[in-house]
């Protein structure tokens, strides 16, 4: 149901087209980790890992936060924003249904009144 824009899909696709970056996502799916942890786990230099994390961060798949001297990485909030977008579309569907339903209810009210008037006569 969610529609992905091509540009965004391309960017995520590029971000995911690297085995290390997919590994990082998998890793962060299990637990948050610092760049140092990740660099060690993937046998990489800090600079190398920073680059990978940067790519993932750009497309929203990862967020990082610096606390003291440690930069912690976690899975991004993109899912959340996609959920928000979906919820908004879902809300709009119901809102437009209900706006139509208003009309039906008005019509039923009108008919009921007319019938009541007829009966009274």
């Amino acid at each position, binding site marked *: *149901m*969610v*529609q*992905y*824009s091509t540009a965004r*899909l391309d960017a*995520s*696709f590029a971000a*995911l*087209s*690297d*085995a*290390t970056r997919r590994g990082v996502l998998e890793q962060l799916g299990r637990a948050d980790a610092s760049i140092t942890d990740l660099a060690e786990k993937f046998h990489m230099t800090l600079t190398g890992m920073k680059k990978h994390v940067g790519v993932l961060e750009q497309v929203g798949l990862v967020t990082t936060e610096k606390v003291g001297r440690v930069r912690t990485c976690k899975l991004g909030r993109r*899912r959340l924003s*996609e*959920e928000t977008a*979906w*919820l908004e*579309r*879902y*809300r*709009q*569907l*119901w*809102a*437009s*249904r*209900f*706006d*139509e*339903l*208003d*009309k*039906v*209810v*008005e019509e*039923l*009210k009108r008919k*009921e009144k007319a019938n009541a008037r007829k009966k009274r006569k």
Partner: protein
Amino acid sequence: MHARRESEPTPMKNPTTVERKSEREFVVTRTFNGPARLVFEAWTKPELLKLWWAPKSMGMSLLSCEADVRVGGKYRFVFGFDASKTMAFFGRYLEVTPHSRLVWTNEEGDGGEAITTVTFEEKGGKTLLVLSELHPSKEALDGAIGFGEGLRETFEQLDELLVTLGASEGRS
């Protein structure tokens, strides 16, 4: 792509709110300016249901709308972009309590049945309607939302690319 037409609420319309209540449940709330018996009627008579269930903004029209609104009765709504592309929603009614409560199953999904409960509460001539959609699991709800879908698609494309690159590739 979705049109940028923002459907801002016109002053007279009551607001519709949607909230994710839990990992498995959504709740939609709306007030109607009419008594519960009329709002309920509009949900239980197919000839009235079809007047509002497929608003124009949905981009699909309701090709058929059958609803046997009794406990155990079935419903089937068929939507279509055109005659060749249709989508059916179906299930059965579990509870039908006049003017106050409707419960039905949604059986078209593959992750198990979702249950929809609608309650109608009348106050001073107005009706507060609360619709809850309870999915069998978080995965089913995510699937309905399309997370699973989108990510799977991305990975599938990725797999294809890797296969293509596989032959010529040295190291990334």
